[in-house]
Structure formats: structure tokens, C-alpha cells
């Protein structure tokens, strides 16, 4: 199924949760979904017969623009052999996104990484710890406005 059809289908079911379809961007179009609907939308994407997005290829945290962060979902369907990109855009001062770990198991670690690197907070995440950085690290390194901490456990960090 093409992105436009998927968008229309989602729009007809969720209406307000689905915000926008961007097709004029290189290389692939994407759909923007609101943060408090992403779990329901994901479940629909996975279980609807004509969609069947049974695998989450990749989940990335992105420093979207000056005020926003994004959580990007690349979905793929083994059954229908089609792809779609979903984005959830949240403000930096309240980066709250619903977790989709119960829809795709692989999301659990990817969400932990997005939290660690970008500071996206996933609601209902079963294990919301940092994954790559130490548990007591400060800040989220992949944000554009990240300032590295001066000392970590008495060790000077920037060398």
C-alpha cells in the first residue's frame, strides 16, 4: 500500500491523532502522529489486515528542530512487503511519547536508546533506564544543545 492510502486509512480511523502526511520530502514520505495516539495507531498498523506492519525496522530519536524532538518509526510488513515512516513530534520541554514496546518487542531497547541519547520519555516503558551511557550520566548526548558535564565521579570529562 502506498503512503497516501495508508494515511487516508489512518485518518478515517483515528482522525485527530493523525496530523499530517508529508510527501514532498526526499526520499520517502512520512506520516506525523500525535504523541498520545501512537500506541493505538501502532496496534492498528500491526493488526489491520490490509496493513500488517509486523516488524519495526528501526526506532530513532531525532533532535527535530529548535523546540522539538521526534521519535521516528520505520515500519515494514513481511506479509505485504511495504514500508512506512511514522513520526511523533514532541516539544523539548515535555518530551512525552507513548511506548510501543507491547506492539513490537524490539521497541523496548530502541526506546531506551532514544531516551538515553535524546531524552525522549516513553510512557509505560517497562525498563526506563539508560542503555549506553552510565546510569548517572547527565544530559542527553545527541541533542544539538548538549553540553558535556564537567566532572563525572571526580574525573574530568572534556579532555
Amino acid at each position, binding site marked *: 500500500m502506498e503512503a497516501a492510502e495508508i494515511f487516508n486509512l489512518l485518518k478515517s480511523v483515528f482522525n485527530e491523532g493523525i496530523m499530517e502526511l508529508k510527501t514532498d520530502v*526526499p526520499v520517502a514520505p512520512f506520516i506525523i502522529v500525535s504523541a498520545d495516539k501512537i500506541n493505538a495507531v501502532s496496534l492498528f498498523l500491526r493488526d489491520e489486515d490490509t496493513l500488517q506492519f*509486523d516488524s*519495526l525496522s*528501526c526506532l530513532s530519536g531525532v533532535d527535530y528542530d529548535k523546540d522539538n524532538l521526534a521519535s*521516528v518509526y520505520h515500519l515494514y510488513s*513481511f506479509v505485504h512487503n511495504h514500508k512506512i515512516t511514522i513520526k511523533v513530534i514532541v516539544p523539548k520541554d515535555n518530551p512525552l511519547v507513548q511506548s510501543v514496546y507491547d506492539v513490537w518487542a524490539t521497541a523496548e*531497547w530502541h526506546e531506551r536508546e532514544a531516551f538515553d541519547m535524546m531524552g525522549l520519555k516513553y510512557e509505560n516503558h517497562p525498563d526506563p533506564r539508560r542503555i*549506553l551511557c552510565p546510569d548517572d550520566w547527565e544530559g542527553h548526548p*545527541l541533542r544539538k544543545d548538549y553540553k558535556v558535564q564537567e566532572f563525572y565521579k571526580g574525573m574530568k570529562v572534556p579532555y
Partner: protein
Amino acid sequence: MAELKTDEMVINMGPQHPSTHGVLRLELLLDGEIVENVKPHIGYLHRCFEKHCEAMTYPQVIPYTDRLDYVNAMSNELGYAIAIEKLLGIEVPERVEYIRVIMAELQRIASHLVAIGTYGNDTGAFTPFLYCFIDREKVLELFEMTCGARMLYNYIWVGGLSHDIPDGFVKKTKEFIKYFRPKIKQLNDLLTFNKIFIERTINIGILPADVAINAGASGPTLRGSGVKFDLRKNDPYSVYHKFDFDIPIGKGELGTVGDCWDRYMVRVREMEESLKIVEQAIDNIPEGDVTSAIPKRIKPVAGEIYSRTEVPKGELGYYIISDGSLNPYRVKVRSPSFVHLSLMNQISRGYMLADVVLVLGSFDVVLGEIDR
């Protein structure tokens, strides 16, 4: 006499441990020999790859991709180059594509040899490990004569290659193909169909197909569960559509579909398929210039791409966002090992301590691409 109190024991396997394939720590909860829970802790090898990329120009990233999965540098470069080429919308010459495929398939053989050898070592058989390394050496010699490096090549560039293949490469590659076919049989006799090895690896770490897909498994891990899916066939890139090869899948010949032996066997069979591809490609390399399509300045328009390729470990995805400048705005690597390691707890619970090592080994994780 009062009943003795029993309690589970927590064991830290790693970060320094012979079988964790790098600096990985597994926190095991054990009831005697039985594993109740596995909690992987990663990040010991975190090198800020993604942050680094944002400060690099597009071609400068390539040497860093080598270091993601360091036993598989060619395929990492290939994935990155393909992603950027799609973003730029450029075509590369046929000759480049052929050489890329040959390199990627040779690299697959080398990577699988490491996987198989270390897996033998995990079961306690040390000799197959060295046999595999002798054969891997032959592949590395081919790479060395091509680009001078043995592990981290910086060979596949955006739009082309750093050098053309040297004289004698074709002849040497053919010699290798002839030499390597019987070696696979030798390996099978020594390790694959060894009774003890079979007993150790069947019916443990069973990964059913639906769980595998839901958890994002890919590559030999997914195919070991019986799913006939290979990006080279199902979502073709480069010139793979021109070659004839099979996709080996786990059939549960000796145990259950999706057990460790199946995943192991998929790798062994994939080496034969890779040989087939190299055999078909090596004779038909078209003439041409391998550096002609390399752009002088790589400056894609603002946009983004998620591009995925089939590396020996599974699906390697690059999510690259460009803001129209010379540096990438964001590079996210979706590494197969990262996803597979997250499966550890689910499929090694209830087995024995010795099996945890084998389940981990059957995923063939490389910490370089997990921690990035």
C-alpha cells in the same frame, strides 16, 4: 531438621569474560544451573559514533562505519554508501556494483567464519576455531591486495571505490573459491555433525518465527527460525537481482525449528551461497572506471532516508537526515546485533548456564555495533 533455605544466585558474566564476544556484561539469575533471568548490560564500548558523524562531512564518516562491526567492515561501508547514493540520487557504474558485491560476499564468508569458529570455541572445541581463521586469512589476503588494509578498509566510497581491483585479483579469487569449497565439508565433518556438538546446540534457545519477526530479528537469526527472508532478494539493492542464489533457512532437521543449531547451520549454508554469487560475478565484471561517479562535493538536499542492507549479522539500517549542509544532521545506525541481543532474556530463560553462552554465540553479536 529445619529445611535449608535456598536462594537464587546472581552471577555477573563479563564485562571481561571469554565468551561474551567483547565487553558485554550479562547479569544472570541462577537457580543452581538453571537460568531464571538474563539482563544484558551494554555500553562499555560506546564511542559516540552517531555524535561524531554530525561533525564529519559525508565521506569522512566511512572509516567510522568500518569500526561498527569490525569483522565485517566492507558490508558496513556498502550500506552507508548506498544510503548516501540514494539520498543524492546518483547512479554508480556497473563495474563498481560488481566489485562491491564480490567484496560484500567475500566479507560475508569471512564474517561467518569468525561466527562459526567462535561458536565452536563456545562449545569447547578449540580446533575448528583455528581452522576457520586459516580460511578467513585467505579472504583477508584478497582484501589486503585490493586496498592494503586487512580489517578496516575504507574501500567502498560514495559513488565508487577508492581503488580498482589489482591485477591478479580475479585469478586469486577463483583459486580461493576452489580452495574453500572442500573446506566447508571439512568443517561440517569436524564440527557441524559432531554428535556432542549437535547434542549441545539442538533444542536450546528456540526462537519461534512470530517472536522473531515481532522482535525485529533479521539475517541468519530470522532465517534460522524458518522465515525465508533476505534483503538481497526481498528488497534488492546493488546488482543482487542479477545473481542466482538460494536463501537457506532453518528446518529443524535435528531438533526444533529456530534452535541454535539451525541458526548455526544457516551460516554454514550461506557461505556456500556466497561462493556461488562470487563465482557468478567474478567472470562478468564489466569494464569501466571505478572512480568516475564519485561526486566532487557531497551535499545532499535537505531530506532523510532509511536504507537497509543485508550484512552477515542481519539487517543493517542507516537512518540519515540531511539538512542541506556538508555534514549529516543525524546518523542513526540500526544494528542487527543490538536487536538480537535484546532477545537474549526471552529465549535463554529456563535453559542451563552453559546454554546461555551458546545462545549468545548463535546470534553472533559484535559489541562494536551494539554500543557504536
